[in-house]
């Protein structure tokens, strides 16, 4: 409450300061006075000299687009791209910051309801987008030229009633096994395509005196990756699971393939590092980057960071998908990136569409990735990651995309995710509860979320 009041007071002060400072400067973005909003307009490339000489080349000179997004979206890569857009297209940008989390969700819902959306909003794909009822508020992008190359999996998580509403951010990420290649070479192991092979590899590594699996319970969220990343195996075995689960007819504890995901924790319990119960995410990064452990179930978002901190490991870490039971059906669970959504009632629709086309142009995606790094292949078909990206992403992860063997994580397929997921996966990982008990407990946990969303699950 205190924070909220402080937020209001601060944003009021900022708004007042802005009015006093900028005098009569024209601002197309309405001052909605929402807390946490960054009232500082961020205009880039205000080089009047070049502007006047190149007017002919810049089709959108004088247009200012308002953007809304979080600090994650507005990273260095994004900054580099919008600077170039101002130079080439003449579009100026005004950004407003999404404070993130539930607060951000409430802001965008309010702005949808009051018709006060910015021209472009950067927001999650999947269940959070569905909650906004996109067809009421956003421009239909299905037939736009720049969307034709976007892959269908991504389109499915920004669609409603078969129409597509979002243009993607550059890179996806995968929930997979990060592994230390030198250990595999040393023991002559091959990348496993079945869970059995994986466990066999772990046993060989253990016999050779290695730490086969890094587990980092010190940051409990990390333990979820094995379960969430196993979604490919679950959905490929039970294609209807997500839908039935949302309706309350399918349960984890009653679905064989789902219990299988939970049981995987028990299968590898002998292979953990000695400090598994206390190691943190950062301990995991250090252990993997130095070859102290061979496998780690982790999201590929860790790779750019790992390589930035330990440049030597760039060629030594690889990734593979969490194996299932059928070698021919081995694929990767993917977290789709967030997307840009165009305000349906914007006055600057043409400029917005031109910007999105610019955004998805190959050279601009290269610019973004070279500046910021990549956590996975792009969801634009035919786009190859630049050479600056490490082989773990550019080669190992890319192959699943090229073969079409990817399925989005469960949170993109249903609106329900258990809030205590990470506690349950930790308990399962440390052997506190069996796979079957964990599945049952997770069902109970999801029921709470369902109840909160007003779904009838009885």
């Amino acid at each position, binding site marked *: 409450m205190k924070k909220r009041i402080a937020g209001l007071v601060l944003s009021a002060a900022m708004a007042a300061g802005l009015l006093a400072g900028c005098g009569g400067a024209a601002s197309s973005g309405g001052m909605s006075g929402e807390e946490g909003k960054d009232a500082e307009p961020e205009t880039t490339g205000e080089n009047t000299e070049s502007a006047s000489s190149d007017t002919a080349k810049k089709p959108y000179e004088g247009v200012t687009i308002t953007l809304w997004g979080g600090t994650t979206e507005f990273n260095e890569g994004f900054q580099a791209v919008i600077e170039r857009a101002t130079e080439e297209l003449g579009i100026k940008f005004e950004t407003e910051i999404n404070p993130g989390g*539930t607060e951000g969700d409430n802001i965008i819902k309010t702005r949808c309801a009051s018709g006060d959306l910015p021209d472009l909003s950067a927001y999650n794909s999947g269940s959070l987008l569905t909650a906004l009822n996109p067809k009421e508020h956003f421009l239909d992008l299905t037939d736009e030229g720049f969307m034709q190359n976007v892959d269908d999996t991504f389109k499915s998580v920004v669609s409603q009633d078969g129409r597509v509403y979002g243009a993607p951010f550059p890179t996806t990420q995968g929930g997979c096994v990060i592994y230390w290649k030198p250990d595999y070479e040393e023991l002559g192991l091959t990348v496993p395509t079945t869970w059995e092979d994986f466990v066999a590899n772990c046993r060989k590594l253990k016999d050779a005196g290695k730490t086969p699996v890094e587990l980092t*319970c010190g940051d*409990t969220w990390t333990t979820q990756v094995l379960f969430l990343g196993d979604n490919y195996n679950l959905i490929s075995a039970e294609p209807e699971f997500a839908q039935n689960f949302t309706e309350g007819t399918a349960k984890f504890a009653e679905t064989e393939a789902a219990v299988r995901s939970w049981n995987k924790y028990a299968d590898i319990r002998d292979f953990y590092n*000695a*400090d*598994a*119960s*206390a190691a943190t995410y950062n301990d995991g990064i250090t252990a993997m980057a130095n070859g102290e452990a061979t496998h780690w179930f982790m999201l590929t978002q860790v790779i750019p960071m790992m390589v930035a901190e330990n440049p030597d490991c760039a060629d030594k870490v690889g990734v593979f998908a969490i194996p299932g039971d059928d070698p021919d059906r081995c694929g990767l669970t993917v977290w789709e990136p967030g997307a840009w959504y165009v305000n349906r009632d914007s006055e600057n629709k043409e400029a917005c569409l031109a910007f999105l086309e610019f955004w998805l142009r190959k050279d601009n995606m290269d610019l973004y990735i070279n500046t910021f790094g990549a956590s996975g292949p792009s969801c634009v078909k035919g786009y190859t990651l630049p050479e600056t990206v490490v082989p773990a992403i550019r080669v190992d992860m890319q192959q699943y995309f090229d073969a079409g063997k990817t399925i989005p994580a469960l949170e993109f397929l249903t609106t329900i995710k258990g*809030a*205590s997921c990470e*506690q*349950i996966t*930790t*308990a*399962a990982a*440390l*052997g*506190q*509860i069996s796979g079957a008990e964990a599945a049952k*407990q997770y069902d*109970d*946990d999801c*029921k*709470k979320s369902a*109840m*909160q969303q*007003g779904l009838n699950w009885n």
Partner: protein
Amino acid sequence: MQKGKRRKISLYPIWFVLPALTIFGIFFLYPIVTSFYYSMTVWNFDSAIFCGLENYRMFFSENELSSAVVHTLIYAFSTSMLKVIIAFFIAVFLCSRIRTKDFIRSAVFFPNLVSMMAVGLTFSYLMHPTKGLFNAVLTGLGFAPVDFLGDVRLALGSIIATDVWKGLSVSVVIYIAGIQSIDRNYYEAAEIDGASRGQCLRHITLPLVAPSQNTIIILSLIGGLRSFDLIWAMTSGGPGFATDVMASVIYKQYAYGFYGLSTAGNVIMLLLISVIAFPLQHILRRREEAIV
């Protein structure tokens, strides 16, 4: 005490109590009453849907929530008991004629000067399975390392031990005050009658220190029932749900956005503390009155 006097000369008009009562009403009574209503709804900041006793049913039927009630009781009773017993002997020792009394008294009181979060973090590092000091000592002595906070069976015990280490000092201070206020004549009389030191302790010190003991029991028990910070700093309720207590569970449900459920948890905690604390206080007071 001065009842007769007060009745004759009413010094202050009754409405002097109004400001305090208003504040008490707004900030204590009103929230308690509304929390009973909201605990029976699924609510967010826009709306509240009435759902009867569903939240309570869920709280007790779901393992991760109901186990928290059990952990809370184990935690509160064992920390309280250990503090009452251990602190008594330390206090007796510190009241005897020893030379370094003053120094030991300050040393015993020292843990209480450190903040709970700092204690929690320090002990979680000391108890680290591979890098912690405790395990370095254990392995140095030839024992197998112990995963104090990662082992489901040990985690709650490890936190209880830390809480006792930290909370002992206050109990010792209360006991010392109690012991010192005992009239020396009793001991002298007993000595003349040939009582041993053990008998003095059993039949003089123990009964006469009862008022201090009751204070310690009540304080440490209520403190234990609503403890949160130490557990949060050491394990955040983990591994899994092995050290989740009422307060940490309520906090988590609120953070997840299950406001109704978290309100129900608060009501349960309020009732639990009341049900334990009020009768206990009554019993202890009668014990006290019987002695004095």
